[in-house]
Structures are given as structure tokens and as C-alpha cells.
């Protein structure tokens, strides 16, 4: 059976459908692998067979690891927070329901930064997740549990959420594929809100084909989400072999500092491969990209401060006793939320408060407009904008916990896309030695495309993935 665990989702699903692979057997093997989690990637794992699973469908028999931010009826859902410890939602999120309808089975709920706030998974109330490539390092975040589970052989595939890079950055740091679709492609219903105008669900998989498979199952308009549209034209499995006739834009501003040498080298090598595949490279100006972090760290906390106000100890979740209502509120939230969440609630509340709204929230919204315009202009000249996914490879646990701003700046390459609402994918591009030495670690390459151009994005990523031929596995480097 261990051989079956090596299969991609597409191949496993094909064999199950053809009767070449036992469905129960396959599920049990993955359940055993998940149960043996030594990375703290899971917060909950399923046990026993799943009689309710759909017999047919493109994902029939495929077990999926789901970030603990998606509600699953009757299955604990905490969003990595103490304030939701023991909470069992009365309903299932649309994304998970759609996966079930495509035949998939819930394998487990994965660890994450509390309410998806973080880039290292060190902000979980249930302990940090370890990077399968080097357990002294972070897997990235906030979908760190999902990324580590897929990279560490604890799940064949996973889903996560991306608000400022929370799918792409951990995928990059763990050497797997992670995709953030266009805003509105997948319903947000049942996806616990962090920043509602930015949050989007997406796949974390071993390869681009599997990402397309999961995306195809989840995308679609949902009457429960007023902001959902689906992907016009749907999603087909990618199959492109070259990049002829496609133009790839490298932001002019990328020449700036802050990138590790190994990351830069890997990025440049990938650019060469693009040219070898017939792709055309170009420089594109994204003059406001440098303000992306500023806009993001005003808008996301502002939305979060109101989204997280409902955790008040009244209807569900943690309550700390107090002599009066105010004391109950303040103690419940002080005990229930972790440091980073409190910091962002404070930051967001401040940005919205009387006298500061225009200076912070209002201005950030206008910067967002500029970023949207930057990308619109760039896509008149090129088909894709490419960058590294993260300026560094996986960093050591605790390395940035004392400096919130340093942690935020790490999201430099991933925050502009959610601000612009456009899709982006991170694929493993190779390995690089971390700054300060040590075994080599995965580097991600990011491609961004215009809104709803997922089909083309997946095709280009697929062609590049085939050319790169990344086949390194955790453990081999040590």
C-alpha cells in the first residue's frame, strides 16, 4: 500500500475508478499515515471507513486534508483558536460539501495560524506545525498544517485559504503546489472569515494537475455567498507542453533587496526555463507593489477586527466568567485569542476608529485601487506576472516571532494578488541553501494571471512544472 501513497490524486482516482485500487484500502492507508502525524499538522483525523462517501465523481475515493478554518458539521472546527475549542459547527462549508459531492472523503482537519493570521504557523493555539524538510523550521502559514501534511506524506492533497499568501507561501516553503484562485471563484460560505474582501479558498497539492482537479470540484457560484461567481468556462485538466506565444512579466521593482541569494538564483534559473520553453520575458512596472504590505496590513486587520467581534462568549465557544457583561466580554476575548490575533484586532480597530478612518482605512482602500490598476496595465503587456513566492526559504522556528513587522514584510510577494483579486499559483522550482547554511530547502515560483484566467494559468504552470521536473522529497537532503 505504501506505493499507493506515492500516487498523485489524479492517478489514484483513475485507478480507484478502474477498480485497480481498493477504495477502502486506500483510505485506510491514508488514515494510518495521518494518524502517525509527527509534524503537528493535524488537529483532528478521521477514523474508520466512510460509508457516506459518494461512489462516483472525479474525486471518488480521494481523502482530503482540510484546513481547520472550514466548517464541517459535527467535526470540531477551531480555526486554530482557543476561543473555538471544542466547537462543532451545525453546518458544512460549501467548499467541503462540493468536494464530498465530487466523491472525496474528509481525512482530517489541519493545523493553522489562529484565524489564518500568520506566515509561519507559530500562531496556532494548538502548537506550531513543523516543516517536513527540517523540523526545526516553520512550514509557512497560515495553511501550514495543510502544506506540511501534503509535503510530509500525511495527505494526498489538501485545501487551505489565502488572504495575503496563506496558501502559496506555505506551499513554497514545503515544496508543493499551492493556488489562490480569483476572488469569487470558490464560495466562502463556511470558511471562517479573516478578511472577507480578500479571503479565498484553494488547493495545496503535489502537482498542478491535482490542483486543477480540486479547483474544478470546488469552483462555482453559491447562492449562500453573494460575492461568489465561479469560474466562467470551468476548469479542465492542464496539458500544455510549451510556453510559445506567452509573455511573462517580471516586476521592475523586483530588483530591490530583501531576497535570499538562493531564492534569487532559483528564480533566475526558472526564468531561463521559461525562455527555453518558448516563453517571452519582459519587465513590467508595478509601481505600487511596494505599498501592498501597508495596504494589506490596514485592510485585512480592519476587516478582521469586525469579523472576529462575534466571538463574545454568548452563543458558542469559550466564555470566561465576569461580574458584568463588559468583564465577561473582555476576559473571554483576552483568554480566547492569541497574541497575533489581538495585535491585528487592535490594529484594525485603530484603523477604523473615529479620527483615523480616512488616514488608514480610507487611504489603504485607495492604494488598493492603485494596485488593481497596476495589474490591469501589466496584463495589457503580458500574460503572467512572475515572482518568487517568498523572499526566503523556510526559516527557523522562533526566528521572527519577536518582530511582527519582519514577519509581515515576508508576505511582500503574495499580498498584491488578493488585493487585486487575481489568481496566482506557487510551484516548486528547486532547492536552495538557506541563509546561514544548512540542508537545502524548497523554493517556490509564483505566476499570477488576470482574474478568471485560471485555465491559462494552470496550463502555463503545468508546462513549467514538467520542464522543472522537481522530484526532491523531504528527508533526502539530510
Amino acid at each position, binding site marked *: 500500500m505504501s506505493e499507493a501513497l506515492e500516487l498523485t490524486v489524479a492517478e489514484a482516482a483513475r485507478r480507484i475508478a478502474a477498480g485497480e485500487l481498493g477504495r477502502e484500502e486506500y483510505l485506510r492507508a491514508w488514515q494510518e499515515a495521518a494518524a502517525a502525524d509527527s509534524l503537528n499538522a493535524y488537529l483532528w483525523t478521521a477514523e474508520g471507513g466512510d460509508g457516506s462517501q459518494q461512489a462516483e465523481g472525479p474525486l471518488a475515493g480521494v481523502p482530503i486534508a482540510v484546513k481547520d478554518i*472550514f*466548517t464541517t458539521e459535527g467535526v470540531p*472546527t477551531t*480555526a486554530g483558536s482557543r476561543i*473555538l475549542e471544542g*466547537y462543532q*459547527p*451545525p*453546518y458544512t*462549508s460549501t467548499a467541503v460539501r462540493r468536494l464530498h459531492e465530487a466523491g472525496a472523503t474528509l481525512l482530517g482537519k489541519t493545523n493553522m495560524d489562529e484565524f489564518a493570521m500568520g506566515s509561519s504557523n507559530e500562531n496556532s493555539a494548538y502548537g506550531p506545525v513543523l516543516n517536513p524538510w527540517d523540523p526545526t523550521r516553520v512550514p509557512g502559514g497560515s495553511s501550514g498544517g495543510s502544506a506540511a501534511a501534503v509535503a510530509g506524506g500525511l495527505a494526498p492533497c489538501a485545501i487551505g485559504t489565502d488572504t495575503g499568501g496563506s496558501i502559496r507561501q506555505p506551499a513554497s516553503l514545503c515544496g508543493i503546489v499551492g493556488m489562490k484562485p480569483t476572488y469569487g471563484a470558490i464560495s*466562502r*460560505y*463556511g*470558511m*471562517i*472569515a479573516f*478578511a*472577507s*474582501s480578500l479571503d479565498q479558498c484553494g488547493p495545496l497539492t503535489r502537482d498542478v494537475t491535482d490542483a486543477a482537479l480540486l479547483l474544478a470540484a470546488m469552483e462555482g457560484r453559491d*447562492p*449562500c*455567498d*453573494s*460575492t461568489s461567481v465561479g469560474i466562467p468556462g470551468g476548469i479542465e485538466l492542464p496539458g500544455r507542453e510549451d510556453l510559445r506565444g506567452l509573455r511573462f512579466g517580471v516586476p521592475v521593482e523586483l530588483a530591490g533587496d530583501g531576497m535570499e541569494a538562493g531564492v534569487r538564483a532559483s528564480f533566475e534559473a526558472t526564468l531561463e526555463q521559461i525562455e527555453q520553453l518558448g516563453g517571452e520575458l519582459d519587465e513590467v512596472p508595478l509601481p505600487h507593489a511596494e505599498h501592498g504590505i501597508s495596504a494589506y496590513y490596514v485592510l485585512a486587520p*480592519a*476587516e478582521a*477586527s*469586525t469579523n472576529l*467581534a*462575534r466571538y*463574545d462568549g*454568548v*452563543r*458558542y465557544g469559550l466564555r470566561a*466568567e465576569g*461580574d*458584568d*457583561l463588559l468583564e465577561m*466580554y473582555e476576559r473571554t476575548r483576552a483568554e480566547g485569542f492569541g497574541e497575533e490575533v489581538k495585535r491585528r484586532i487592535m490594529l484594525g*480597530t485603530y484603523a*477604523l*476608529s*473615529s479620527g483615523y*478612518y480616512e488616514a488608514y*482605512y480610507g487611504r489603504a482602500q485607495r492604494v488598493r485601487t492603485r494596485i488593481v490598476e497596476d495589474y490591469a496595465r501589466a496584463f495589457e503587456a503580458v500574460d503572467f506576472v512572475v515572482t518568487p513566492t517568498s523572499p526566503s526559504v523556510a526559516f527557523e522556528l522562533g526566528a521572527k516571532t519577536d518582530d511582527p513587522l519582519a514577519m509581515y514584510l515576508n508576505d511582500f510577494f503574495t499580498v498584491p494578488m488578493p488585493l487585486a483579486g487575481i489568481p496566482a499559483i506557487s510551484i516548486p522550482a528547486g532547492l536552495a541553501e538557506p541563509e546561514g547554511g544548512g540542508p537545502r530547502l524548497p523554493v517556490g515560483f509564483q505566476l499570477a494571471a488576470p482574474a478568471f484566467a485560471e485555465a491559462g494559468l494552470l496550463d502555463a504552470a503545468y508546462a513549467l512544472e514538467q520542464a522543472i521536473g522537481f522530484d526532491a522529497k523531504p528527508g533526502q537532503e539530510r
Partner: protein
Amino acid sequence: MSGAELEAVIGLEIHVQLATRTKMFCACELSFGDEPNVHTCPVCLAHPGVLPVPNRRAIEFALQIAAALECEVAQGSIFHRKNYFYPDNPKAYQISQYDSPLATGGRLGEVRIHRVHLEEDAAKMIHVGESGRIHGSGASLVDFNRAGTPLVEIVSEPDLRSAAQVREWAQLLRTTVRQRGVSDVNMDEGSLRCDATVSVRPAGSEELGTKTELKNMNSFRFLERGVGAELERQRELVSAGEPVTQETLHFDPSSGSLTTLRSKEEEHDYRYLPEPDLVPLVPTAEMLKSARASLPELPAARIARYEGELGLAADVAALLASDPRTAAYFEQAIGAGEAEPRVVANWVTGELAAVLREGGGGGGPADSKVAPESLADLIGLVASKRISHGAGKTVLAMIAADGGDPAELVEREGLAQISDDAELGGVVEAAIETNPEAAEQVRLGNQKAVGALVGAVMRETKGRADGGAVTRLIREKLGLA
């Protein structure tokens, strides 16, 4: 300065619960007076991950109110989050409208409307005493049945000048909204709630004095009394040269007194932000048209239309048009059959009114058991001579008493008109035989005597005979034709 020279400046902020079937942002049914927490779901309880989806009818109703108040509807409006913590506010923000409301700048009577916007209602809190668990502290129970009920907030300009005018105007507003059928507008049940902003200023001055806000006046009488009491208080203060403090006051109906609501300064910082879970509302031309089309016709316009277009006599038109429900009944009856409006009008104001008067029920046609469609059917039966006019009245009385279908009743009671000469001929001959004097009088040219013979035929046929045919046959049998 004496109090008499001080002019009152009063504005109203009115919340109207819309009479939709479901809540503003979820599909829970609206209710009043049910057991606590039986009309809730993850959405209206603000469980993690839920999203709001607006109720189309709530928006249509709000547009109707905006049309009735002659407001200008915004080409696009958006929802905002109004943030404050309180147990009756499950998301800790109310979805409301802020700087981009549904409609602005209208008028009702002599009072200008500042704005009309949509929002959602809060839950109900019932304060209970000592909890017994924590020493010395009370507790409240929260019932979320009401949470999320669609509300329209109507804000007037400060154009009201006395407590009595406030009451009159609020009642006018209630009538206006009630006529639209978009709300129960009942102050007892809380589907209509009025808050007032009150200030005084020297008569003739354009400047506004410091205003206070009055809450919790849950009847028109209390509204008038509360505003009156606050005006008196402010006039006394100003006359004594003392300042009015800006504050929120709570009206206590039992004592008639006003108490200050304590509030912390941060509670006024609602940190409004555009609701990212919802998309803009852009009323289409069609939505606006149907909102305007649903405006009720004023009685005077309706009387003119009945006279002009339907050809009714002035007195009949006035009878039908003055009550909107009677008018609606009449128009439904016209629409349900082929008869001329004048004929239908005569039945409604004549035969039906008489039957209802005799029945003693006291209500109008719209309250009777005679559906407008049944009346139309009945008129049709008479017009096509399937039944006689007299039988028609009999059937009408039966329906008014017990309901029923005209055609079925005609069948069951055997009331179908006899106009067949062969069948009627025998009855006419028998009538001539048993009334020889009357027959002789007719022969001698006394036309009035025909009535006695016709009456005999009608008695014999229980009113089912065709009156015209009977008269003709009598004359034939007597050799006069």
C-alpha cells in the same frame, strides 16, 4: 427669555419592521410571540463562516416606502457594518446603511424626509434578576427570533414644531406605510418604533439649539407625552439661562418621566466600514417602476376614474371609491367577468349591499363570504338568462350566509330559469284558469292586471320563469298578440 417665545424643533427617527416572510439576510421565518429561539439558524446566530444574502422582497418593500415618501432613490447604495458589542447584536455589527443610503430627500405632508435606509433588527433581551451563580449580579436571557428582521429606518428633517404635531405626523406616516401593506406598523408589537430629537430655539431663529434624543416611546400617546415633557424641560432650562446638555433620554411611560441613559464615550464610535460580504444594491428601472406602480390611488383620483373611464354615476362611483377595500373588490369583480362595470357597480351597491344589510353582518363586500369572482359568476348567470334576476338575489343571499359557488347553488336548488314555451305554456294556462277575473281584466285592456297572472306563474315556478316570456305567453293565450 420666556418659554412661550421658544420654538420647538423636532425630528423623528422611525424604524419600521417589514412584513416579509423571512429575515433580512437568512431564510428564517419572521414571527411574533413565539417561544424563544425557535426562528434561528447559523446565519442569524452569527456562527463562524456564515454569510448574509439579502432578501429581495425587503428591498422591494423599502423601495415602496421610499416611493410613498417621495424620496429620490440612489442609483447605487451599499451596506455598511455598524460595530458595537451587545448580546442582542450577534455579529457584534449591525448590517445597516451609512453614507450611501437607499433613498434621500423626500416629503410626507409638511415634513421633509432626510433619508430612508435598510437594516436588520436586533435580538430581544429579557432581564432577569439574580442569577444565583455569581453573587450580586443580575443576568439577561437573549432570544434571537427577532434578530435579523428587516427594518426600514426613516429619518425626518427637524420640521416638526409641537408635540401634538409629532403625534399627528407619526400617525400619518403609519397610515401611509400601512396602506402599502409592507408592514404591520404596530407600536404595541414594536413593528413601528419612534425616537425623537428635540431642541428649542428663539422663535424666528435659524440656528439650532442643543438637541436631546428621546427613546422608548411605544405608543402615539407616549410619543406626544414624552416630546411634550422634554420640550417643557428644555424651555424651563433655557428660560432660566441654563444650558441643555446633549444626551439620550429614556421615557418611562408609568411615571411619564425622562431619565438619562448612561453611555460610555467609546460606544459612539461605531467604526462603520463597507460590508465586504455584500455587493452594491442598484435598483433597476423595473424595480423602481413597480415600486411606484404599487402606490395606492387616492380616493379622489379613483372617483374621477370610475366616472370617466367606467361610466359610473357620480354617487355610485363615490360609494365604491371612498373605501380602498371596496374599490379593490369592485375592480376584482369587473376583472373576473364579462359584465359591464355599471352592471357590476349596481350589484355591489344595490343587491349585495342590501343582502349584507339584511344579513346584519355589518361589514362591507370585502369582508363578506361573497368573493368578487363569485359575484361576477352570478352576474354572468343572470345576464345570460340562465337564472332570473329574482333567483340571482336568492343565490346571493345564500352565498352571503354560507358561501358557495353560484352555478352549483343554482343546480342544487333547481333555480335555473324556465324560458321554454312548451313548459311555461301549461303553467300560464293554469294561471289563467285559476284567475279568471284577472284574465278578464287583461282582456279588457287593463295592463296592470297582467301582474297578478305573472305573479301566479312565478309562485308556481318558484321565481324561475323568464318574466318576459311569461308576459308574452299570457298575451298570446288571451288572444291579444
